């Protein structure tokens, strides 16, 4: 017990370069305690807001503090090898041994920093956003639990522990999507998220089986160290493993073909969308691919698949985002699209670029979601006060909100510019690196697609801003007077994130950009973790070119893309700001190509028709035809047949002695005949 506590708090086995994880267990313990307290609160002191408001955010901030301390310690030591904290043996059966081990290396600590950091901000924001919700305590318990599982996912030192976090965050996502479970559709969206995620998890699970079969362990350190020797570069096994892992990633990170759950996931409270469905959980797939970078580096086919699917998703989702009216849906598809970018990055082998975009995206997408949350919050209040039941999420009901929500307006514009990839905001640097990587690694088509997507991004984000904040207000005369800026507890987080959205990109500034100091902090930071993967790639002749497929260096294209984005933003703004929209209740549904986009390419319908309905029919058939009909039918028929035989047999028992005697004599005759045979 003492040992356990010790390891929980302090001791690392693979300490290196003087770095020792600081209070590692607390990172997990804080959110867990928060979950327990808030969870109990949900039952015991249902109406009290004080405890959850205090415990919920504080648990996460505490966690963040520990992570920060670790980050600083690690920054100082810059260890080469990961530090492993073994808490206890989870399963040890035969040659399988899985420990509850936490891994502290640059990747995990960085990711933790983002996760706990953004979480802290969003927790604080939630105090304001959820204040009036009857499930306040429950909300915070779920949110804390999410952070716990997310931390497990990030810190897990082996596939199995990561899988715990992986499914755990899925669970929390499920719970939070269906947070307002009384709405059947919301609950249904949660269910959908869970089931779709499970398809991905299946891939993860089988990948683990394969890994164990070939490595005899699931520990990252050992697997990745042994991979280059154990597996053949580009061989079937490693390709299969990575493809399966990527299947997991498509589920969690909402990529084609499993992205369908994420837009529906917007049913949850908006801070949840910001935290889980934008900033943290959905990026877990990217994190996983980066984590297993060595394996992916060994499987070119998988990498190409990852990149292609990433790029495809990016473009596909962006087109849909163009024609959505629900503000959160736009952001959701935007998220899907941006995640596609990240996969494109890790797919082409630019793992750091992927992580980079992951970080910046966490900032500006959280910002955008929280901003939209502020809008929705304001609309909801206003609508609530006049007892109207219009959709507070529909942008067609907004318009001209910049006057009532100035802070929100301002911060959201920062987010928009950032996501559009305009210099010098965070998105510019990260996105640029991805586009450049795609181009320089020779993925010409994907490179073009990525540029195209960047333009679309700028377009739909500007559309969102215009529809929401500019032009005339369409909410109605009765509603308008009730619209108010959100309280400080909500706008302060917006501001923090806005700042991060600006400066977040400065950690990595390519040297090729003119007139800027080259910063290589992120690359440098992740170097120890990403080194093996890069080595594998270089060994097998994968090199980054110095020119794009169409010629021109990084700087040219960076400038060109930011310029293009700027132009798109301005053009869109000009084109839309004077258009007259009508409130949602008075609008027709779009038709033509816009209709197709509005209906999301009919993918959900397609899945329904092609997969779900046939499956349900099959299952029903299994039950009614096979189970009830065939098996039970046969058995019942046998039973009644038996009884029938008995009944027929009893007919011989006529009650007439002569008949009995006849059978008697027949019996004698047969016996005598038997003897004579």
């Amino acid at each position, binding site marked *: 017990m003492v040992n356990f506590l010790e390891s929980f708090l302090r001791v690392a086995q693979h300490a290196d370069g003087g770095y020792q994880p600081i209070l590692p267990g607390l990172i997990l313990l804080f959110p867990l305690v928060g979950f327990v307290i808030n969870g109990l609160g949900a039952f015991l002191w249902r109406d009290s807001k004080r405890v959850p408001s205090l415990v919920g955010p504080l648990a996460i901030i505490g966690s963040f503090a520990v992570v920060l301390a670790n980050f600083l310690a690690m920054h100082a030591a810059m260890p080469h090898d990961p530090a492993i904290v073994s808490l206890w043996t989870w399963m040890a059966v035969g040659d399988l041994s899985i420990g509850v081990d936490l891994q502290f290396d640059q990747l995990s600590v960085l990711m933790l920093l983002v996760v706990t950091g953004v979480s802290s901000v969003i927790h604080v924001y939630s105090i304001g956003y959820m204040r009036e919700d009857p499930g306040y305590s429950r909300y915070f318990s779920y949110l804390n639990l999410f952070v716990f599982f997310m931390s497990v996912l990030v810190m897990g030192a082996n596939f199995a522990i990561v899988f715990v976090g992986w499914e755990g965050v899925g669970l929390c996502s499920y719970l939070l999507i269906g947070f307002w479970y009384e709405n059947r559709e919301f609950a249904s969206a949660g269910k959908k998220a869970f089931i779709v995620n499970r398809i991905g998890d299946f891939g993860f699970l089988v990948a683990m089986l394969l890994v164990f079969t070939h490595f005899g362990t699931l520990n990252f350190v050992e697997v990745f160290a042994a991979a280059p020797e154990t597996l053949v570069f580009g061989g079937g096994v490693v390709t299969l493993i990575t493809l399966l892992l990527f299947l997991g990633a498509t589920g969690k990170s909402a990529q084609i073909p499993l992205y369908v759950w994420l837009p529906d996931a917007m049913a949850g409270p908006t801070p949840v969308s910001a935290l889980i469905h934008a900033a943290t959980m959905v990026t877990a797939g990217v994190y996983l691919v980066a984590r297993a970078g060595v394996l992916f580096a060994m499987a070119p086919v998988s990498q190409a698949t990852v990149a292609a699917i990433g790029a495809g998703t990016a473009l596909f989702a962006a087109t849909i985002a163009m024609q959505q009216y629900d503000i959160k849906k736009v952001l959701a598809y935007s998220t899907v699209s941006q995640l596609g970018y990240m996969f494109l990055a890790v797919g082409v082998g630019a793992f750091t670029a992927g992580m980079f975009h992951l970080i910046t995206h966490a900032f500006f997408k959280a910002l955008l979601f929280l901003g939209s949350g502020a809008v929705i919050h304001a609309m909801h209040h206003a609508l609530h006060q006049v007892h109207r039941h219009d959709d507070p999420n529909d942008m067609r009901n907004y318009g001209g909100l910049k006057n009532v929500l100035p802070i929100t307006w301002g911060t959201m514009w920062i987010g928009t510019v950032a996501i559009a990839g305009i210099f010098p905001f965070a998105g510019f640097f990260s996105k640029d690196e991805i586009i450049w990587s795609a181009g320089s690694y020779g993925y010409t088509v994907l490179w073009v697609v990525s540029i195209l997507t960047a333009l679309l991004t700028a377009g739909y984000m500007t559309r969102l801003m215009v529809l929401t904040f500019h032009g005339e207000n369409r909410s109605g005369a009765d509603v308008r007077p009730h619209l108010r800026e959100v309280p400080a507890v909500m706008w302060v987080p917006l501001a923090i994130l806005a700042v991060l959205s600006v400066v977040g990109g400065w950690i990595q500034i390519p040297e090729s950009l003119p007139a800027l100091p080259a910063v290589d902090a992120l690359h440098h930071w992740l170097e120890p973790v990403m080194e093996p993967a890069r080595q594998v790639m270089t060994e097998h002749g994968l090199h980054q070119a110095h020119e794009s497929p169409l010629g021109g260096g990084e700087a040219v294209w960076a400038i060109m893309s930011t310029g293009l984005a700027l132009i798109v933003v301005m053009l869109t703004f000009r084109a839309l700001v004077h258009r007259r929209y009508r409130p949602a209740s008075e609008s027709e549904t779009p038709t033509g190509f816009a209709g197709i986009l509005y209906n999301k390419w009919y993918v959900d319908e397609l899945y329904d028709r092609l997969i779900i309905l046939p499956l349900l029919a099959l299952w029903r058939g299994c039950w009614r035809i096979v189970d009830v009909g065939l098996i039970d039918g046969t058995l019942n028929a046998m039973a009644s047949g038996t009884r029938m035989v008995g009944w027929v047999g009893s007919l011989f028992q006529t009650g007439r002695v*002569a008949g009995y005697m*006849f059978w008697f*004599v027949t019996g004698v*005759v047969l016996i*005598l*005949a038997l*003897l*004579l045979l």
Partner: protein
Amino acid sequence: MIVDFFFVLFAVMAIGGAAGMVLARNPVASVMYLVMAFFALSGVFVLLDAHFIAAVNLIVYAGAILVLFLFVIMLLNLGRTEKTDLRGPLYRMLAIVSGGAFFGLLLVMLRGGHVTSMAGGMGQETMDAMLRARGAVGVVADPMFRSYLVPFEITALLLLVAVVGAIVLARQKAP
């Protein structure tokens, strides 16, 4: 020769009597046919040197038992011809086929078998000698009251049971 003649005579009588009993429509006639068959059988017994048995057969069977039958037929007032008493053609065929098959198989088995006499058996001479020495009754009586004392006693109980049973069953008033 004379034995053969009598045997054939008795055999025909016995078969005729048996067949007559089975086929006669009137119960009383049936009884009479059976009496005839038993008479003929007793004759065969005599031909086979079982004089005492022949006598007992006549006295007990033909004399007592069949009279009892007749008595019951009269008592129950059944002495009239019943058309339905003999079964219909289908059943008749079934009965005759199964009975015939049985007889056929028996015949095959009787012909395929042989009588085994233990330790050389008794033989005609011994039999005759025993008959001469002890008389027809004596040869039977001696083993019956010595070796077969136990079955004899059992038979006594059996008869008692029959008596009590007959009383119990045929008594007028229900117990």
